[in-house]
């Protein structure tokens, strides 16, 4: 194995799958669990998910999740049993005894009752046991309805994968999350693959996806929007009805998901260039382990031999990463402040503070944000806004900043990540699900995308030039 890259396989997979969701931020000090310890090194090969693993997940959530101490554990077990019965039904089977046992509210006793019912039920359909176990764990984690609570299992690298490859249709569209989508649905970027081969362009309107309208009664059709972002091993072709407004042309394309190469130059996490009148533009695609230093080096490089008048930080599509890096970068613009509170459900909070050893840049800041700015990116943007360290331009952020996610190793060598603390903004406001509203709302239209215009960038520049 080459020296570099060996340990990156897991992350590369996530990237290959075209996942825009935030990477798990690095662990911060938190209660360590003996039920589900932090992984030490790369996990071994995955084994079957057994009822013992389900038990581990149940007690891991109760023991380490930020609201684990207070949540009603019966909700987890009910969700788990519901999923069990639905998965049975999907397999075309039924078990007469698959009945939810009565629960009392005693966490241990309820688990014992659930486990007995689970064993009895799955014992009738041994061929389905693995599949039912997976559905059970997925449902228990999904019951938390928390973007940062995840169970990672069965990840496979697509055969023929090369470092930097994307996986999917090769396009990005104006909607990623159905609940924040507005009509019309249009292509915002063509990265490669099937979308490029089919000749799609930014600004092209997607009128239907596999025959479904993307919006019905003004509400986004979740299945239609999700179908635009298949992840490996999903490989079913997706049929799109397209409209190019500039010519009035309507046509159908069928895009097959697959691996496609991307230009390495576009994958750099930090890129900078000087813009008119001394504005330093820096794009940061994620808060990786050295993100703050890389951004600051880029600014210093532009500052050498040039008078800078402001910093334009482009965080659109920044899926997050390390909260520590978000804090470090923020500390180049403001000192002596609380950037966030990390709290238990009972309200015990730790304050995250600026790192005042970072030298202040002394430059005005405008930050570009959108619905792809998630997690540590929202930690950063909410603090910029609350602390008046700069102005936000664009659209509301993702609302996916539940809290720093921490990994836990399960007995089947899969990993469960859970936030041990809930994230609140500097004003103790909840940012998760709600997102951070920009100071200047500048959405991208299909017409802008078709013309290659970036109205948010233009607005940001005019603010810095004022």
């Amino acid at each position, binding site marked *: 194995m*080459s020296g570099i*890259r*060996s340990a990156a396989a897991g992350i*590369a997979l996530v*990237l290959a799958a075209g996942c825009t969701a935030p990477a798990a931020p690095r662990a911060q000090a938190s209660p360590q669990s003996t039920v589900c310890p932090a992984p030490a090194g790369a996990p071994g090969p995955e084994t079957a998910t057994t009822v013992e693993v389900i038990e581990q997940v149940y007690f891991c959530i109760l023991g380490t999740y930020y609201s684990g101490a207070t949540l009603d554990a019966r909700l987890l077990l009910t969700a788990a049993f519901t999923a069990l019965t639905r998965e049975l039904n999907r397999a075309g089977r039924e078990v007469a005894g698959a009945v939810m046992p009565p629960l009392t509210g005693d966490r241990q006793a309820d688990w014992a009752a659930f486990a007995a019912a689970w064993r009895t039920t799955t014992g009738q359909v041994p061929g389905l046991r693995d599949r039912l176990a997976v559905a059970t764990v997925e449902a228990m984690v999904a019951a938390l309805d928390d973007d940062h609570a995840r169970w990672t299992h069965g990840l496979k690298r697509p055969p023929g994968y090369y*470092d*930097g490859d994307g996986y999917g249709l090769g396009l990005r569209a104006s909607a990623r999350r159905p609940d924040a989508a507005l009509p019309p649905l249009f292509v915002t970027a063509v990265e490669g693959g099937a979308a490029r081969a089919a000749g799609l362009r930014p600004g092209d309107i997607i009128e239907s996806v596999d025959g479904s309208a993307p919006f019905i009664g003004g509400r986004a059709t979740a299945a239609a929007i999700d179908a635009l972002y298949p992840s490996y091993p999903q490989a079913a072709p997706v049929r799109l009805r397209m409209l190019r407004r500039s010519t009035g042309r309507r046509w159908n394309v069928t895009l097959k998901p697959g691996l496609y190469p991307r230009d390495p130059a576009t*994958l750099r996490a930090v890129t900078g260039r000087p813009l008119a009148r001394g504005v330093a533009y820096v794009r940061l695609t994620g808060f*990786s382990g050295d993100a703050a230093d*890389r951004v600051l080096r880029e600014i210093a490089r532009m500052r050498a031999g040039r008078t800078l008048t402001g910093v334009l930080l482009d965080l659109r599509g920044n899926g997050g990463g390390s909260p520590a890096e978000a804090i470090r970068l923020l500390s180049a613009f403001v000192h002596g402040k609380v950037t966030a509170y990390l709290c238990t459900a009972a309200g015990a909070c730790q304050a995250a503070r600026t790192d005042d050893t970072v030298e202040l840049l002394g430059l005005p800041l405008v930050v570009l944000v959108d619905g792809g700015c998630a997690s540590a990116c929202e930690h950063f943007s909410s603090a910029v806004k609350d602390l008046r360290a700069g102005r936000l331009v664009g659209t509301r952020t993702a609302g996916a900043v539940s809290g720093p996610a921490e990994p836990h190793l399960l007995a089947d060598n899969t990993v469960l990540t859970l936030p041990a603390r809930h994230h609140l903004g500097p004003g103790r406001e909840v940012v998760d699900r709600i997102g951070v509203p920009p100071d200047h709302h500048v959405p991208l239209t299909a017409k802008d995308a078709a013309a290659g215009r970036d109205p948010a960038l233009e607005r940001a520049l005019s603010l810095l030039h004022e």
Partner: protein
Amino acid sequence: MRKILALAAGLAALAASGCAAPAPPRAAAVPPAPVPATLPAPAGGRPVGTTVVYLKDTSRRDPWNPDAEARELKVTLWYPAARRDGPRAPYMSPRESELTLKGLRAAGVPADMLHRTWTNAVAGAVPAGRRLPLVVLSPGFTKPVSTLTSLAEDLAARGYVVAGIDHPYENHATTLPGGRIAECLACDVDSDPGFGTGLVQGRAADVSFVLDRLPAAWRGAGRIDRERIAMVGQSIGGAAALAAMVKDPRVRAGVDLDGTTYARISGGGLPRPFMFVGNPRHTPGGADNSWDRDWRLLTGWKRWLVVSGAEHGSFTDAPLLAGALGLTPAPGTLPAARAAEITRTYVAAFLDRHLRSRPQPLLDGPSPRYAEVAFCPDACHGS
């Protein structure tokens, strides 16, 4: 976010070569102070000379240094020489030694320790021979090409001209004309997706430029047979060998010493000879799938060798230098001299086979003389 340097960065670079921190000294025994390393004498019989040429590609910007409008390259040549006498070339400059040791986080070692390494090549010796085959060498990430000196000197003594490329900003210290030092700017961005892919594309362009310009840049270049060119690299330098072959048909054959590969071989496959040589983690079906992926796309003569006891750095000078850095090899790893012998022997056999059309039974299958070397994918289980 990513731990990609787990095996390569800092001290791990040498640790991966099979070295571990020394045991604490026992009360009575004071360990001897480390002394500079001595590279083993080449097995080939010819005297070896070495010199450095600098090239500047003004057609493209440097991929790492945004302030550099041209891509500069430092090429170290090793070649058969007319005479054996003369001052031995330094392994690297004192400043390069200092920065390389700092990059490796080697503590408590005199800053010029690598500079004082004993080499075999005579600085600036007059070249000898004619119609010599050419071998391009490319080192691992963060490493200067001098970490392949043991291999380079041996190949030159066997009658090859060796052009070792230092790709600036991809190692801890490359001296450029005027005494400027290029430090590792690529190290700042090595966690980005597509980093390896982009890096080997850049190295392939570096190699083509060297092949274009070497005749004008070095007065010994008339002795090179330009129809017989191969490339050998370690780690990402091995990946670069494959990338250069994909891009430039002048490179007729290639060897990848333990490098995860990144270049995309087009659907028709690569019909020219190629050889993988890896440590046991590069056994088929291992965590790195790149060799498995590419093996199917290599449609010409090919070999996949796995060397038991080898570490990532075993195919470089790292084990030879370990003692000078106060490191002792981990138990069970290939001894330094043996690692150097296996690397030299198998690389030379490959080159003799494909550039000189000399039969090489050594490459036909397992050899009792080199029992460590298994032939994959068919016969390497349990290696």
